[in-house]
């Protein structure tokens, strides 16, 4: 929330502050973000998840407002209510589709058991559409120096491209992934604008491949030796971020990232550590509540766990459900602090911007997009930032 106390109890700054040496800076305090996420998780618990629209908005507002490019902070102008409306409209569209999916699946299954699985492909297409439209919503809510970013292009054309490229990636066992990412980024950036400044993407699939091919070789090993997986995934994400950021252009403005491969690995290990700790706490809680319910039922322990009523015991299910909810929310806090805020800060810290003078006289253009895409992304569970 915007409960920042104003004015801050600091002496007025020097009349002309020295411009920061780094073109992109982040000024948000970690404790402030933690407080925001903690409070949001509590409210999510009380509202059984409905608060997520407002929490997500608050997280974005915090991250955007504290991101300073050339000394000026960005701003996120989206609101929770928009996301809620987008979600409700998406629901109204998705429900008949789900119903139709069910009926078509029924027909297909009549001929062959489990024949309805290919229909999942349709939802993949729909998910890609949602990703494009959700990006459009976020971009049109992003403002810097009083001018907003915006986006055009067709979500369905994007979804079709993404699906066809996805098919190629499957056929080539993942080798085509860099070219898929490059092609899709080119489409997205070509249709992105900052005022009247058109975006473009200069990253080439080949460069991405050159930097990451050895990770492709390591992936099968990492799938067997799971302690290796965070290293491989962290390195892959770092390579991807660096390559992606270095390809972004807006007119003459060029981004350059120097993200090192090792920088994200630590983050993933911290998250894994927290998952282990929280998982242990949750198991102990489950064992304790099972013991409590067993002692209340009056039956001897062994008898209680042998009888089939054990799995249907309502007090136990309620206790387990509440515990699970708390566990999931704690996990959400961990993931948001490390994989949203800390990741954001590290990635931003690696970015240098050149040719910012090209963005000195930009006229405002473009209209706001609705939050329907965000709603679909929520309903289909394909959300991004």
């Amino acid at each position: 929330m915007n409960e920042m106390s104003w004015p801050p109890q600091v002496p007025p700054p020097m009349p002309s502050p020295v411009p920061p040496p780094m073109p992109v800076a982040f000024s948000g305090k970690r404790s402030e973000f933690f407080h925001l996420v903690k409070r949001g998780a509590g409210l999510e618990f009380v509202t059984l998840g409905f608060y997520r629209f407002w929490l997500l908005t608050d997280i974005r507002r915090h991250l955007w407002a504290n991101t300073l490019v050339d000394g000026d902070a960005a701003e996120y102008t989206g609101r929770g209510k928009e996301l809620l409306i987008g979600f409700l409209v998406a629901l109204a569209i998705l429900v008949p589709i789900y119903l139709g999916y069910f009926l078509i699946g029924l027909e297909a299954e009549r001929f062959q058991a489990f024949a309805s699985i290919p229909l999942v492909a349709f939802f993949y297409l729909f998910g890609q559409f949602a990703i494009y439209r959700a990006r459009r919503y976020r971009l049109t809510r992003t403002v810097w120096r009083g001018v907003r970013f915006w986006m055009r292009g067709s979500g369905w054309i994007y979804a079709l491209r993404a699906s066809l490229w996805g098919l190629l990636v499957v056929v080539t066992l993942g080798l085509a992934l860099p070219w898929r990412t490059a092609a899709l980024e080119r489409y997205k950036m070509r249709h992105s604008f900052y005022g009247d400044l058109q975006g473009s993407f200069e990253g080439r699939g080949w460069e991405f491949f050159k930097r990451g091919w050895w990770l492709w070789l390591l992936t099968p090993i990492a799938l067997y030796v799971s302690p290796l997986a965070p290293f491989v995934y962290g390195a892959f994400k770092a390579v991807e971020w660096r390559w992606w950021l270095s390809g972004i252009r807006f007119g003459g403005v060029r981004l350059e990232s120097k993200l090192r491969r090792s920088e994200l690995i630590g983050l993933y290990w911290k998250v894994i550590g927290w998952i282990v700790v929280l998982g242990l706490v949750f198991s102990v809680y489950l064992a304790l509540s099972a013991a409590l319910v067993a002692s209340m039922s009056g039956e001897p322990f062994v008898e209680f766990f042998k009888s089939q009523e054990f799995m249907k015991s309502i007090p136990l299910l309620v206790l387990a459900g509440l515990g699970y909810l708390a566990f999931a929310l704690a996990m959400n806090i961990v993931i948001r602090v490390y994989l949203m805020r800390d990741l954001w800060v590290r990635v931003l810290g690696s970015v240098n911007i050149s040719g910012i003078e090209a963005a000195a006289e930009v006229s405002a253009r473009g209209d706001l997009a609705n939050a329907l895409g965000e709603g679909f992304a929520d309903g289909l569970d394909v959300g991004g930032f």
Partner: protein
Amino acid sequence: MDSHVLETPKPPPDGSATYFDGMSNKRRAVTLRFADRLEINGDEGTLAAWAYADIRRADSPAGMLRLSCLTAPGLARLEVRDAALASELVSRCGGIDDDVPGRRGVAAIVGWSLAATVSIIAVVLFGLPLLADRLTPLVPEAFERRLGNVADSQIKTMFGAKVCDDEAGQKAFAKLVTAIRESAGLDTSVQSGVLSTPVPNAFALPGGKVYLFNGLLAKAENVDEIAGVLAHELGHLKHRDNMRGLIHNGGTSFLIGLLFGDITGSSVLIFGSRTLVTSSHSREAEQNADSFAIDVMHRLGRPAKPAGELLLRVTGKGDKGLSIISTHPLTEDRLAQMSREDRPASGPPLLTTDEWRALKSICSAKI
């Protein structure tokens, strides 16, 4: 008041600020003048004048006050870094925090969410059972049969099971089912078979299919035990419990899914809550099927108790088996009900000793 001492460290009251007009991203250094409206003055004169009542706070990093105005272009922004100037501005703009959802805004979100939760729970507990009862008779038989066929092929794939077709056994099974079916008042559309799987179970599928698993048959000691189980399953068919359960379960999962949204791994939660909600419902359906089975057995002049004994024998061993359509959470209570209403046999046995032996070995040709 001696202002000389205080004046020197403070910047002038019409301090400097940064202004973006919302039409271009040009950064303008401006000075502010507090007139009857807030005047924003640049090098070329007054750039804008904002009424104090229309000024709102916008998101900003720490150490800066960022303002917008309701009557100015939507993205026009005024940025003030000077703390003294900022506090002066805040004190003049009465409505500055009107758009910030404070404590009351959050309370409204919580309140509405709770109302939505209560309404969804009420629909799940009271609306859906009613809806399922009313909708079930409206579902065409053909559609139900189609559903049954889908479940049929999935179950056969899952268990890798085949219908046993030993000829003498088939004949005995058909005789048994026909006797029970006629007594239950169901027409000839009912299909039935014995599946060759060691899992001790039996179930009814929508559209009139009853399957007995060979595992249950192997554990049975006499024909009345099997007859009672079949009568119970026919009871489900008669009441169309599958269809009702489908509407009820589907609706419950959907609504609870809606409620919990995207809290990670919510499917576990959905599953748990659904078990809670539907267990009471399915218990009722089981009881009705039991009563139905007892009635049918009595009409045939056979005891109902053996079926209860068979199922207790199966579950007592702790081997519940796995069934995608679980129908038999048998407990002592159900055996007690069957014993209470039990009557001694008054009619002829349902199968002869030879036929019973043939039925028991119906799957032996395959296994």
